[in-house]
């Protein structure tokens, strides 16, 4: 199951015009698909926090944004998410999980375990995709919810789907 391809097709069909990301192994293929798509503006950022301003400004101007980040990046957006909630900015966030299913790096575990609670604490709706075949459908549902209800909706893609088990695999991606 090529979940990045299926997810990219959903994002294109729903008219997402802006894709904000910080490079990430789990998102590598989806990022490349978005960069190659002339309908989307792929914006590489220095920190995930920049994505909240990006998405807010884009929506003020009428464009839909999806943010791609790793679970550690969720820690970088917490305060800024207050603007999304207060202004009711629709936003889809796709999070590749670390520190969650068979993690080998202990430094990833604290934020991985805090990812869903932190997102919920800031008012984002959280959906968990545990299999590759679920991801695109979850993203489509999250987009419907976010743009129908004017809020942030996050899809957490389990480490089970990403499948990185050690440093050698991570470096080889």
């Amino acid at each position, binding site marked *: 199951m090529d979940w990045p391809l299926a997810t990219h097709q959903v994002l294109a069909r729903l008219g997402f015009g802006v894709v904000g990301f910080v490079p990430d192994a789990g998102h590598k293929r989806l990022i490349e698909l978005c960069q190659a798509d002339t309908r989307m503006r792929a*914006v590489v*950022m220095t920190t995930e926090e920049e994505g909240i301003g990006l998405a807010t*400004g*884009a929506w003020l*101007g009428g464009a839909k944004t999806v943010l791609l980040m790793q679970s550690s990046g969720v820690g970088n957006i917490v305060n*800024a998410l207050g603007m999304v909630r207060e202004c009711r900015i629709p936003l889809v966030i796709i999070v590749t999980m670390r520190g969650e299913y068979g993690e080998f790096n202990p430094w990833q575990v604290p934020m991985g375990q805090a990812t869903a609670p932190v997102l919920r604490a800031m008012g984002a709706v959280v959906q968990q995709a545990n299999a590759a075949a679920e991801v695109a459908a979850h993203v489509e549902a999250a987009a419907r919810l976010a743009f129908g209800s004017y809020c942030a909706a996050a899809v957490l893609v389990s480490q089970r789907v990403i499948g990185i088990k050690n440093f050698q695999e991570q470096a080889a991606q």
Partner: protein
Amino acid sequence: MSLQRRDVVQALLADRGALLVVAGLGSTAWDCTAAGDDALTFPMWGAMGSAAMTGLGLALAQPARRVLVLTGDGEMLMGLGSLATIGVQQPANLSVVVIDNERYGETGMQATHTAHGVDLATMARAAGFASGVLVRDMAGVAALRQGVHKAAGPHFAQIKVAAQKVPLALPPRDGTLLKNRFRQALLGEDAARQ
């Protein structure tokens, strides 16, 4: 004679036409309100460090419109990475202007890094902005205003102003109101049904 922040912002926003404005939290948002509350100004009451990126998102979504971010030195310092991100994207319609009083105005006028010589304009040029200028007089402000409306950017300017307390001029606080009035003014009545 130091520049007065309210004079500077008033001059930059004079005859603003179709200009879209993002105002960073704190004094610059109050300055914009003092110059005239406007549906096409989005004043931020939080998310410190996000003003320049909010301007980038707006500039990318509206490439045919000119976008001006007006923010403070403390707010800009909290989002310095966004200068690099804007430098990569090269939005020709975006200007980021820092009203630099070298102080954190809302927390007791403590010195910011710019008071110690940190040079934001040089940083912006190094990040790839088409221009990055330090402005110290009203002639420079007038030239900057021309560039904001006409010249190919992205532009950056750091305008040194007097560190002074000025009367509060507060925009509406409700985020959904600020968002909806901006989108309606820019995108039309149907914006609320999208």
